[in-house]
């Protein structure tokens, strides 16, 4: 039985259909990437999976149980939501942000216990961000903030991580480091459902890609099978070649920018080369 199951989910926002009969299954330890253009329904699907939106029709099941029958608090112990990186209005300490993840384990009137603090410290160690504990959350880098949110999800004790465009807003290096963290966690058995705007992120770390267009799934399967120039053309209406590099990772090469002189093999004005070498 699949760990999470989205079955024939339909959702409309003010009579405008956003999801049309969507069904997806996610197995334990899988990394599933949602791909789709802006407004395709990715975020809505993500919010449906974590129970923030109740589908008009259809069900979302967690280990066979309809999540609408699971109390919010209990659900939060199984599924953690990692939002897009954001600033927040108040400069809480990183440790305090991570402690928030302990909420689903607390009673109505609560105080954080020493155990909660220990758990927060353990997850910080795991992601090597212990040095950030006392820093204000609003003043650390975007990559560090995203790691803080992942640490919070770990502190929540959840095994399923649902991430809405986790890499957006991060610089190139931090995007790659984030992907590395996700891969490492998935090897430990954590399940990831994440959306992204970059097909390469799907190719590099995801086991499966689910492609959504106008609220309907147009492709679902292993990344190697599903992410190719035909499906990307269908999804984004743009010609992209998916090329395997020396038997390792696959990359996307857009057709339209190929001949604009920026690529390899074209002559460049030597001054640029000079500057490049000088800087080194």
């Amino acid at each position, binding site marked *: 039985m699949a760990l999470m199951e989205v079955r024939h989910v339909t959702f409309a926002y003010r009579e405008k259909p956003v999801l049309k009969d969507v069904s997806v299954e996610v197995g334990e330890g899988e990394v599933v990437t949602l791909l789709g253009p802006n407004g395709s329904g990715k975020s809505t699907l993500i919010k449906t999976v974590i129970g923030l939106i109740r589908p008009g029709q259809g069900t979302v099941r967690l280990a066979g149980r309809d999540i609408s029958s699971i109390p919010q608090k209990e659900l939060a112990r199984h599924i953690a939501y990692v939002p897009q990186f954001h*600033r927040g*209005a108040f400069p809480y300490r990183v440790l305090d942000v991570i402690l*928030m993840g302990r909420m689903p384990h607390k009673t109505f009137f609560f105080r954080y216990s020493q155990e909660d603090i220990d758990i927060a410290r353990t997850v910080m160690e795991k992601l090597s961000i212990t040095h950030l504990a006392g820093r204000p959350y609003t003043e650390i880098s975007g990559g560090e903030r995203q790691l803080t949110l992942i640490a919070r999800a770990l502190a929540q004790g959840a095994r399923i991580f649902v991430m809405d465009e986790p890499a957006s807003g991060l610089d190139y290096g931090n995007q790659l480091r984030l992907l590395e963290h996700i891969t490492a966690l998935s090897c430990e058995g954590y399940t990831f459902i994440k959306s992204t705007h970059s097909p390469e992120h799907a190719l590099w770390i995801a086991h499966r890609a689910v492609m959504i267009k106008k609220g309907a799934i147009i492709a679902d399967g292993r990344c190697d099978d599903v992410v190719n120039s035909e499906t990307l053309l269908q999804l984004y209406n743009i010609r992209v070649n998916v090329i395997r590099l020396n038997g390792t990772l696959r990359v996307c090469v857009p057709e339209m920018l190929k001949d604009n002189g920026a690529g390899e093999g074209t002559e460049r004005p030597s001054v640029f080369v000079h500057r490049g070498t000088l800087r080194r």
Partner: protein
Amino acid sequence: MRTGLVITGLTCALVVAVLISLVLGKYPVGIEDVCGFFLWKVFNAGVNLSIDRQLLENILLNIRLPRIMAAVFVGASLSISGVAFQAMFLNPLVSPGILGVLAGASFGAALGMVLSKSWFFVQASCFVFGFLAVMAAVGVARFYKGNSIILLILGGVISGALFTSLLSIVKYLADPYNQLPAIVYWLMGGLTLVDAGTIRTSAIPVVAGVALVISLSGYLNVLSMGDEEARAMGVPVERIRIILVVITTMLSAITVVLAGMVGWVGLIIPHISRMIVGPDNRVLIPVSALVGALYLVAVDDISRLLFTTEIPLGIITSLVGIPFFAVVLKRAGRGWS
């Protein structure tokens, strides 16, 4: 450790401020008389007092203490309402009046003064209309099918504007020789009219309200990360928010009953407290209650003693608050620029 120290320090400072305020006044009472009187009153200890006990009881228990307690209540209530609202509405520039409670309560008090001579009726009307204004704000948000923050604030703006204009109507219709000056004076804010009976009645709801907000302060951190995140962490966002809105509305309405309009306290005290202990609401709520109480006790002392006639409290809190706010604005801006 550090927070414990800050809270203990502030509590001691508040006790000292209350004792000093008991000494200050037109009738000279020494600090040893104040201490001796309370030793006698509380522990029944035999002490020598230089002033007649009956007179001392009258000055301290019936005149000065109610007023000082009112300052403590008003300062603490407005400050923690401010902290709670700033966290709930994800905005450090929000003040307790954002949902219309102060406008509603002012209107209620003015209406009471026009309709009745009974002081109790004025206070009841003040309290009830404070609540009605917030209910109107929540109602507007519900009408547009949302409990979202932005709709609540819009509801508050609408409700506040409505009750402000209703207040103008009452002022316009009021008798210009007796009622209008009474209303205007009331709106300037002050603790002149506080009596022991009102303090005794309001003590339980104020203490209970402050205690409840302190015990729910852990939720404020999560609420200030936004509704969706809070809900995804298993927090019953709507329920907590409604509970907090009801408590803070009650506290704010009581402050108007006790002191009229006391501006700026709910906005600047949270910022001062944040500068002392940081933004963690679990610490910030109790600390800002203490700082707010301390501030208002001090300001009330100034208002009664600076000149031979009293200056309305609200005028001083605004005069002190505005330049102070201009100064802290730079620091307050950290985090949401």
